[in-house]
């Protein structure tokens, strides 16, 4: 990467990153406070949701339950307990699974990362070329098809798309495997990294690996549909913007090949906004799997989030929100820094 000023360039980048890190940490701390306030000021009572009608009518049981989970302490004491736990990586204990929330998250995260990474790659592989093509052949039929396809992808409800895909490709045609991460006839590989696609080959279980890949197809397509539309639209707009610049006219006047103009001159400049969007889209994919995972019985964070939210498992909800906020802040940080490195003008502002 080139910086505008050679001398002190690295210093500047480091200082920039450091200041962003401080802001990011402050944001995460404030985020815990907000989620804590929401969890504690709303009228819903987790005790009633957890215990069921019979037990909830017995004051002794309710009292014992409140005491066990620290729900009888004043609010600020509970927040303080939560923060103190945070400093040694303790997110509290999930009310429903009775395990530390951090363990739950560590267990479910790999499945979600696997799914959203595959979906992200899919949407890049299809979205980028489609966007470039649409910009190159502006107002041609291909531009209009790209527009219709990407707008449809953005507009289709995930849960409905998932239902249709399962009904057609699993129920009707039988081409794709059903819900779940691996088939019922497969033994899960020994847990090394938690990632099915890594653990299976490590254990030499190639059948399981192929089976897991097959199970990824439908949910990742469903998840990718909206992101692909976004990437296509952004790439097209950024390409058009780049193509309207003077240096493109110069390149054309020099008689450069059209393909060279597009790929060497326009595309690198058009990629800047795509990088920003790509980062956000990936963060959104990581956190937007609630519906997809619920329908595909995918053992990931999305399904865990849903299950925790429905029964008001606040330790779990706070833990997830915190993790998600960290992911968001961190991805944003990476995007900003890479943006500053790709575009020297950002640093000078």
């Amino acid at each position, binding site marked *: 990467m080139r910086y505008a000023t050679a001398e002190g360039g690295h210093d500047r980048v480091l200082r920039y990153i450091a200041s962003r890190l401080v802001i990011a940490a402050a944001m995460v701390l404030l985020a815990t406070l907000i989620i804590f306030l929401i969890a504690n000021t709303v009228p*819903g009572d987790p005790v009633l949701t957890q215990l069921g009608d019979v037990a909830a009518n017995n004051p002794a049981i309710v009292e014992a339950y409140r005491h066990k989970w620290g729900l009888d302490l004043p609010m600020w004491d509970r927040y303080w307990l939560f923060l103190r736990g945070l400093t040694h990586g303790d997110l509290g204990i999930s009310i429903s699974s009775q395990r530390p929330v951090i363990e739950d998250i560590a267990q479910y995260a790999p499945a979600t990362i696997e799914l959203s990474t595959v979906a992200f790659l899919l949407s890049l592989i299809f979205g980028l070329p489609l966007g470039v093509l649409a910009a190159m052949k502006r107002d041609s039929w291909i531009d209009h098809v790209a527009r219709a396809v990407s707008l449809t992808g953005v507009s289709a*409800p995930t*849960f*409905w798309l998932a239902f249709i895909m399962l009904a057609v490709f699993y129920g009707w045609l039988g081409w794709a495997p059903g819900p779940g991460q691996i088939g019922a006839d497969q033994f899960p590989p020994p847990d090394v990294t938690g990632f099915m696609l890594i653990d299976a080959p490590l254990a030499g279980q190639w059948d399981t690996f192929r089976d897991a890949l097959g199970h990824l197809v439908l949910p990742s397509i469903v998840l990718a549909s909206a992101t692909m539309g976004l990437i296509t639209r952004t790439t097209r707009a950024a390409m058009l913007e780049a193509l309207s610049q003077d240096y493109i*006219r110069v390149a054309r006047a020099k*008689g*450069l090949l059209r393909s060279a103009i597009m790929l060497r001159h326009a595309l690198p400049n058009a990629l800047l906004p795509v990088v920003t969007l790509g980062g956000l889209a990936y963060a959104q994919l990581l956190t937007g799997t609630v519906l997809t995972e619920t329908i595909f019985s995918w053992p990931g964070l999305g399904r865990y989030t*849903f299950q925790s*939210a429905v029964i008001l498992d606040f330790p779990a909800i706070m833990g997830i929100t915190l993790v*998600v906020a960290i992911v968001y802040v961190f991805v944003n940080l990476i995007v900003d820094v890479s943006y500053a490195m790709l575009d020297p003008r950002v640093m000078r502002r």
Partner: protein
Amino acid sequence: MTPQAAGTALTDVAATALADATTGSAARRRQRWLRRYLLPVLGGGVILAWLLAAALAGWITPYAPNTVDVAGRLAAPSLAHWLGTDELGRDVLTRIIYGARTSLTVGFTVVLIGGGLGTLVGAVAAYARGWIEEVMMRATDLMFCFPPIILAMAIAAALGIGTRNTVIAMLVVWWPKFARLARSLVLGQRSLEYVAAARTIGFSPAHILFRQILPNALGPLVVLVTLDLGNAILVFAGLSFLGLGVVPPTPEWGSMVSEGRELVSEWWVATFPGIAILTVVIGFNFVGDGLRDWLDPHARRR
């Protein structure tokens, strides 16, 4: 490079410019018009149709949305029930038409109130500058850490299920993007001459901000509102699908898909409500996309 190539490149540019500026035959003009406006007009038509259907629901369909008919349950699409019946024998088409009321009302409520609040925050922040702007925009940034669906889920779950609570949950997460956009728009305007002129005349800051600056910055906000209407309808349907939206038996598209999700051979129960969501969201997206092209001078042809 050959002179011919340069010549072609230049004539290319000139030709496009000329074709745009002036004529082409009537047929070509019509074709161009069609290409540019087909999707937005189509989208507008779809939305209009849904609005009419929602308003006139009682006159369109002979059935009531919640009449249970156990004998006629899970009937395939027929002349009597165009889109079939669900597990309780309720007419799917009727429930879809009544469902439009819920979806459209929620969509407009969330986007107009949330968008209004966000615009207010962003506009005031940008006009005030200083620490007010700092505080307001950091609060906005903070809200961006929470993915809407997770926060809305937590709030909806905590407040209890029901349309009103879900709308409140969505409002909490909805305003920040409007705040960001409004801030950048007002920042772009406030250094322009007419603002200085208005100040010299002695207009109050509120008057300058709301009567002078905001009307000039309205275009991109309108685009965001249009695109966002579809988005709000999608999020609400998603929450309903998860059981965090409407209380049954209220007809609502997301919960209708949820009710039919296990019924693969009775595909009509889940398929048609999904198509309803798809069409209305596509409608808003087509219109918003067209508006953006139309309002953005960059995107307009040279």
